[in-house]
């Protein structure tokens, strides 16, 4: 089975049907919207930061399965972490998705997120996987929105 198909089967079986941390966050103190104009993916991300710690995180949106699964796994992986650690994951995830980081041979902190390495086989879908991470980055930096078309891959 190809990595692309494996990615689909693993993430869709699970996170697409039962997305984690899906919904609204009433006491959020950071929010950002992510938008992929090419396919119409749209996610809203809300966080509650206590000092430097991500206490709570939730997302909602109308997206494809890859984007939803990526967002779902992102939330479980960054919850309880510091902003600095999350930023490391953002960078590593982007690098993995775009082929700059080879998770098979190079050190990383991605853990299970490694399944998204398969998205490299689907170059037209890399942006779908990366969108939630862009949006998280925007939320940290108090930018209200992120787009996959800013050319900063």
């Amino acid at each position: 089975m190809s990595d692309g198909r494996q990615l689909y089967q693993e993430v869709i079986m699970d996170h697409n049907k039962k997305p984690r941390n899906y919904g609204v966050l009433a006491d959020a103190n950071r929010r950002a919207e992510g938008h992929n104009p090419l396919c119409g993916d749209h996610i809203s991300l809300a966080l509650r930061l206590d000092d430097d710690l991500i206490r709570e995180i939730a997302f909602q949106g109308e997206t494809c399965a890859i984007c939803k699964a990526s967002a779902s796994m992102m939330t479980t992986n960054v919850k309880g972490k510091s902003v600095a650690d999350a930023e490391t994951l953002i960078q590593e995830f982007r690098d993995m998705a775009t082929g700059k980081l080879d998770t098979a041979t190079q050190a990383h902190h991605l853990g299970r997120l490694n399944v998204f390495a398969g998205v490299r086989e689907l170059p037209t879908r890399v942006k779908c996987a990366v969108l939630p991470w862009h949006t998280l980055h925007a939320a940290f930096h108090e930018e209200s929105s992120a787009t996959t078309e800013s050319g900063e891959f």
Partner: protein
Amino acid sequence: MTSVSLHKQAATALDVDKVRADFPILMRRVHDLPLVYLDNAASSQMPQPVIERWVRYQQSEHANVHRAVHALSEIATREYEGARDKVARFINAHESREVIFTRGTTEGINLVMHGFGRAFIKQGDEIILSALEHHSNIVPWQMLCEEKGARLRIIPMNDAGELLLDEYEKLFNAHTRFVTLAHVSNALGTVNPVRGMIHTAHQHGVPVLLDGAQAAPHMAVDVQELDCDFYTFSGHKMCGPTGIGVLYGKAQWLEKMQPYQGGGDMILNVTFEKTTYNAIPYKFEAGTPPIAAAIALGVAIDYLNGIGMGAIAQHEQALLSYATTQLRQVKGVRIIGTAQEKAAVLSFTLEGIHPHDAGTLLDMEGIAIRAGHHCAQPVMQRFGVPATARASFAFYNTFAEVDALIAGIHKVQKVFA
């Protein structure tokens, strides 16, 4: 009824196997599976005679056109102008000088926006266009409206994707200056009743541009019978190369219009005080044109004529009706665009599955469809979907490929089940 018997029932005059042998790309494999190419509305494939003509031109005939007295330039010029004549006959233009070569439909529309719109449309004027236009027939007119203080009026459509003609007629008033309209919708497949709509516009003294990008490859087009003022289409959607398209315009309009770009070839005489423009069509063809592409488009037209636009339309309609019937039987499918008159475009959504996921999973089966908004976001908004999956057929597609699509969709649904 089994699909096999349906195949037989739907058999058409066109010999698909013979036709397919002309398209080398259709033999290739994708992800180690036979290619099933169902993205023809985005761009079609090129048959061997067109490829060979391109190569022969570059190997033995190339020079610049309209410039030099040497032999190669004469050959290139003759072949380039010969292609113009072929286009003129293909759409039954009154004269070849009414045929302008452009980069494609998009440039054709922009040319009319600049040449006609900027010259004749003023503050307070109104431009009518429809709810099913491609972005390329919306954005240039928005730019013009912004510049001039004019405004767009939109012809609405019903849930089948058919324009509401009563509403269309009500849009006309003393400020109406222009109507621009897709002949066939790329997102829905709707064939608009353009002949009557043009007649209505002309009763109000308003000229009409037709965006024929999705019509010219699939049906016989007669611009004199339609009586449209402008007609534009792209070579790459009709077995020709990219980088070449056509704008037809009635000579009486083209002569009054201002040039689109300035440069060589579009002038008769240049001094620093004043430039005299060349006659049409050259007034609108500044700079060195895509010579090889134009010549190849001429051969693509020969190729389509060789099969016959009637036979092409008949085969594609049979494919559309078979595919529609089969797709309707799949659970969770919603077909977007169910007009009475349709070209072979099948836009659909699958319950609980984003079109991009469907597109990616179908691609893994070697099946190429388009997923997205099809450069028609207002259409997506009208139907309340972010995107659709779209299978679009050409005359070289087969009933077996429709079966492959349906089987592929079942597989997609299994992944999501």
